[in-house]
């Protein structure tokens, strides 16, 4: 497998809203260069887990450790320091609607680098070209299609060449070809920059195409029931729910017919 250095370590994590516990006892490690998939049925807490990992929501219990820093116990400055190395692609894209695509992508660069306008402009154009949106600099988010918004948001997430890229349902709302291109782009970035990816998805094709590590959240038992390489899970797991998920329910449907 790729590098063995642990980049994110989650231990004994419980998450929930108020008194309601959504998932408990989560333990997993994301290594440097992993494409880590968070999978599970609808409503199992995949997006909530991601919110905890990116610092938007406090866990009810347990730890998230980046390198050797305990993320939620660190002081705000230290946490911000870690968050500077994140790139995040939100489910809805979350482009700032009052700014053009170029301004959207330029904002992180203006925040954290001392580059001048011209250099920033060049980087912005390059990132847009990378996601197939060359020439769309002056468009507002409301003027482009849903798929294009997603790609522009990806360009923004990559603006600062982050160490870890978080994707919340990247292929939702994309046509099959664009979804495939996105997968290729992820693999390309991983190979060329060594970026670590944490991807929330339930697109099976993507999971098998890009994932080399994963965690499966089970909505009934409210905990993780499997982890590891998804292809290996498909070949070896004996958990019926995990198998059911990874085979699109084909196995159990087959069993029912018999």
């Amino acid at each position, binding site marked *: 497998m790729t590098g063995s250095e642990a980049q994110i370590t989650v231990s004994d994590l419980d998450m929930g809203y108020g008194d309601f516990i959504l998932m408990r006892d989560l333990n997993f490690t994301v290594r440097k260069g992993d494409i880590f998939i968070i999978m599970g049925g609808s409503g199992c807490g995949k997006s909530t887990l991601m919110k905890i990992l990116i610092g*938007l929501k406090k866990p009810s219990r347990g730890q998230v450790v980046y390198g050797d820093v305990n993320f939620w116990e660190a002081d705000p400055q230290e946490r*911000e320091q870690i*968050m*500077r190395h994140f790139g995040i692609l*939100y489910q809805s894209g*979350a482009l700032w*609607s009052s700014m053009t695509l170029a301004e959207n992508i330029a*904002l992180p660069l203006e*925040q*954290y680098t001392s580059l001048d306008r011209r250099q920033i402009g060049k980087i912005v154009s390059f990132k847009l070209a990378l996601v197939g949106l060359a020439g769309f600099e002056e468009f507002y988010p409301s003027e482009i299609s849903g798929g294009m918004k997603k790609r522009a948001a990806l360009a923004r997430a990559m603006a600062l060449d982050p160490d870890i890229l978080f994707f919340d349902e990247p292929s939702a709302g994309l046509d099959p070809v664009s979804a495939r291109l996105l997968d290729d782009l992820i693999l390309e970035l991983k190979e060329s920059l060594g970026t670590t990816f944490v991807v929330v998805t339930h697109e099976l094709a993507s999971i098998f195409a890009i994932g080399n590590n994963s965690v499966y959240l089970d909505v009934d038992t409210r905990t993780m029931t499997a982890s590891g390489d998804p292809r290996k899970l498909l070949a070896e797991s004996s958990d019926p729910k995990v198998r059911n998920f990874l085979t699109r329910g084909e196995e159990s449907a087959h069993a029912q017919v018999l």
Partner: protein
Amino acid sequence: MYKPPGSSDIPKKVMSEMESIRGGLAKDKISLGNLADDVLVISLTGSWTSEDQSPNEHEVISVLGSASRLRTIRFDTSGLTGWDSSFLTFLAEISKYCSQLNLSVETDGLPEGAKRLLKLASAVPERQGARKDSRKESFFSRAGGRTLQFVASSAEMLDFLGEAATALARFLRGRANFRMSDLALFLQESGSQALPIVSLISLLVGLILAFVGAVQLAAFGAQIYVADLVGVAMVRVMGAVMTGIIMAGRTGASYAAQLGTMQVNEEIDALKTLGVSPMEFLVLPRMLALVIMMPLLCVYADVMGILGGLIVGVFMLDLNPSVYLNQTKASLNLTNVWIGLFTSAVFGVIVALAGCLRGIQCGRSASAVGQATTSAVVTGIISIVVATAIITLACNVLGI
């Protein structure tokens, strides 16, 4: 496999007590077999769609409950001419009841499609605890809940005020992080674009004040003092209050809707994770825009109000325009003007903060944006009235 019997095969020996119960059923659509056997055949005939009058399952269920030997239910639908979901709900209710009574239900006699849909509907059992508890809360727990909610929202408001103050302090030290182009846009939106409505309202308020005053003052033959009344009222309070209320409805609501929509689209999350403070980036330029523009709008409103008074003075009271204006000038002093300007700047802060607070607090749905907007206007107007009262009282105590 069970073969559904034709309607002629249904046993004819029907107990007399059954007759009376069956009287309640729509007789022509359903008939029950022999209840004394351990197998009951329910024959369903005719059309069972939601447009037809079909029998109610309760009547069948009450019959089933009274039969002690019964073990199995079968259906005969050879006479059925049509069915839809209402037929399925009827069947589903009966089979649910049967499973409570440990009666087995053989679905072989049903139409193929109905059989499959019934199986599909019962494939995934109801999730435990999924149903919302609809129990009514007691008065005390509701009162307690509301109190806790109120305390929490007050704390949130104070928190927001504190953060806004720190953001302002950072701005004054020149370190705030926002885009000047945003500020320019908000200045334009809350300034020049608000002029038409401010003109209309202030002119009318001036007219109304003058009318009311004229009727009273004419009784003493002191019409000329209408100029004093309108001038002082507009400059000292009404100009500021009217622009405040207009801006709360116009700009405060739009701020709440803008920020609320950003909250729904995860745009505020995207700022936070980037390490950009929404308070500086989003709230500060809006607040500055209103604090700068409100006093200017207020001056404009004062002028328009005095113009309204002048119109009444000239056309209704037959006063000379220059006399009216001189009288107005004599009645005003700079203190009045300063109080009005100060009040309107305070209203600028109030309107901007109420709008932004409600926007940032907004939930993640379309209806939440609507609530945030309403709440921003209500909070804004209430705060304006309370602030006016406080300022008026303070001026009175201070003797200015």
